[in-house]
């Protein structure tokens, strides 16, 4: 078995999940210069809703081919409503406040969402029903499962769609204009409030997709799952250059691969001094390194004049 290739594949899967979530951070930051710390919780809501709906539908005898898209649709709807509500209630009133205020609100929203989920779904883990039978394929000495391929395909399609939306549509042009300069875009006839709401809608829909994929890959969903995931996706967004969409993709994939390789080899590299439970430090180590040596990220532009 080719261990290196297998770790790369593991990293790519993990990375494409991070990338999907990182996109949500980067889009909101690009337009509002707000770090939406509640985004990880939106992913959690997506995972919890899709698992609950899937469990209910499969129990009612709905075929999987129908239940899965319905679960995704339900997750998208709930996430979008949550995302837009959060924007309307927690961020819009503070849009012209000092930048620290919405940041604190975002952390508050994150705690509120977590606790609401805990009250609603309870403390126990939800189990993703085994609706997809795992098939394992051998590729050049490594293995890939059908679920992993599904994750790659869905993530690639979603991100491709997002790039099309941002670069080829009217809404995308309005988004880019708002990102460049909110006031001027407003003067040019762009409805800034609608564009910002649309950004939250798109970001939350991506979070819903990510939530479903993560729940199906790991088989579990939990009210607390969004926290670490959000931090890592945020690190990925910073690594790629926050505010930059291709940067979020690159950052997510890189972070996933680095984490997998790191966890796989850290024990051998340090002679057993550091074990694989230090897997989580890589994301944050990279965050620190990037912020020290290249604060604008790999693909980021210099934003010093705007900060």
């Amino acid at each position, binding site marked *: 078995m080719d*261990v290196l290739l297998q770790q790369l594949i593991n990293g790519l899967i*993990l990375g494409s999940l991070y990338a999907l979530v990182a996109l949500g951070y980067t889009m909101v930051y690009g337009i509002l210069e707000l770090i939406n710390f509640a985004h990880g919780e939106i992913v959690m809501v997506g995972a919890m809703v899709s698992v609950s709906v899937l469990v209910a539908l499969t129990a009612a005898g709905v075929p999987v081919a129908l239940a899965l898209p319905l679960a995704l649709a339900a997750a998208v709807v709930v996430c979008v409503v949550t995302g837009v509500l959060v924007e309307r209630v927690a961020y819009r009133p503070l849009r012209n406040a000092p930048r620290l205020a919405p940041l604190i609100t975002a952390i508050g929203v994150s705690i509120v969402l977590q606790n609401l989920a805990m009250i609603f779904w309870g403390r126990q883990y939800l189990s993703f029903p*085994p609706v997809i039978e795992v098939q*394992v394929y051998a590729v050049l000495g490594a293995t890939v499962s059908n679920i992993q391929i599904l994750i790659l395909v869905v993530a690639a399609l979603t991100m491709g769609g997002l790039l099309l939306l941002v670069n080829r549509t009217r809404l995308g042009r309005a988004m880019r204009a708002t990102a460049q300069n909110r006031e001027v875009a407003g003067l040019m006839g762009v409805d800034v409030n609608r564009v910002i709401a649309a950004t939250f809608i798109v970001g939350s829909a991506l979070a819903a997709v990510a939530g479903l994929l993560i729940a199906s890959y790991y*088989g*579990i969903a939990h009210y607390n799952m969004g926290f670490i995931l959000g931090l890592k996706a945020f690190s990925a967004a910073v690594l790629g250059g926050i505010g930059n969409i291709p940067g979020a993709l690159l950052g997510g994939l890189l972070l996933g691969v680095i*984490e997998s390789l790191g966890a796989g080899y850290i024990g051998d590299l340090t002679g057993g001094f550091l*074990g*694989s439970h230090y897997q989580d430090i890589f994301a944050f180590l990279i965050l620190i390194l990037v912020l020290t040596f290249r604060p604008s990220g790999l693909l980021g532009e210099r934003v010093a004049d705007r900060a």
Partner: protein
Amino acid sequence: MTSKLLITLVLGAASWSMPAWLTAAETIEIGCVAPLTGPQAHLGKDIENGARLAVDTINASTPTIGGQPVQFVLLVEDDQADPKTATVVAQKLVDEGVKGVVGHLNSGASIPASRIYAENGVPQVSPASTAVAYTNQGFDTTYRLMANDSQQGKALGQYATRLGKRVAVVDDRTAYGQGLIDEVVKSVEASGGKVVGREYTTDKSTDFTAILTSLKAKRPDVVVFGGMDPQAAPMVRQMRTLGMKTPFMGGDGMQSAEFIKLAGPAAEGAVGSSPGLPLEQMPGGADFTKRFGERFGKVQIYAPFSHDAAVVLIQAMLRAGSAEPKQYLPELAKTQLDGVIGPIAFDAKGDLRDGPVTLYQVKSGQWQPVETIGGPAAK
């Protein structure tokens, strides 16, 4: 007015109808502590009911200590599975003058409470705590009726080497997971096996593909995990996704219904250990299930253990002819009796000698007992 009158009448009638031996008997108080509120309340109640059944059965046999008829009374306290509350209720029981304590459930509660009992010379028999540290503090008052985590790790290691000589281990770096796996490693090496890989995770992780890939490259015959079910379930799922058909094993942290629910079909064939015998295989299991069922309903897990804990304490008092801890403690250490859970004897630390550990395997979505290691079967 009428209610007061009624109470007086009832009390009067009660005192009249009480048999002479009951009013004359000296009462000896025994503490019983377990979480009676919170998510583990059903398990705590199980402990209380088991002890109550033992006390009532013994009381009905008109016991005597030093020629004096005695009656035992259970003082029940709720430790909420919380270490701090555990010390508070332990102090309360000591102040009320209990002669012995059945409890607590959680190792995290038993350990801080045991210091208070030890300082006041009150014997404590835990029906459920399994952390090695509990009896390792050098107190002569701490006893338990369940195999500890070291005995469990030993059993897991022995079983693992029978599945294959190349063993890979993963632990979650908690006191429980690490302690269990350390014992598994020792036991594997003692049984002629080889630990080909040791990886670590945390009790909050969900992604194990990287460490599993590293382990897969070392071609283990079996993977043993020390941790709880929220990690064990995704881990076994990811093993199957990575095309690893290696058997998966773990301790009582994953030997739960939750594990099967979370892991789905991937749980099939997994082996989990749990201290003690399965109820239906306990020597007194059938009779106990019947007697317990008539009064309290279904046995959860711990009732047979708390029943025997109360019996062990009371029998030591009866043998010593005294309910004073100083007098009966030496007798408690010498305990030799056949309880519901099997033969009971303690080693020098107060651990159950040859505490049995049962291995269960998931077969068609249910944990089925496959084998008991240690305990009466070993003799």
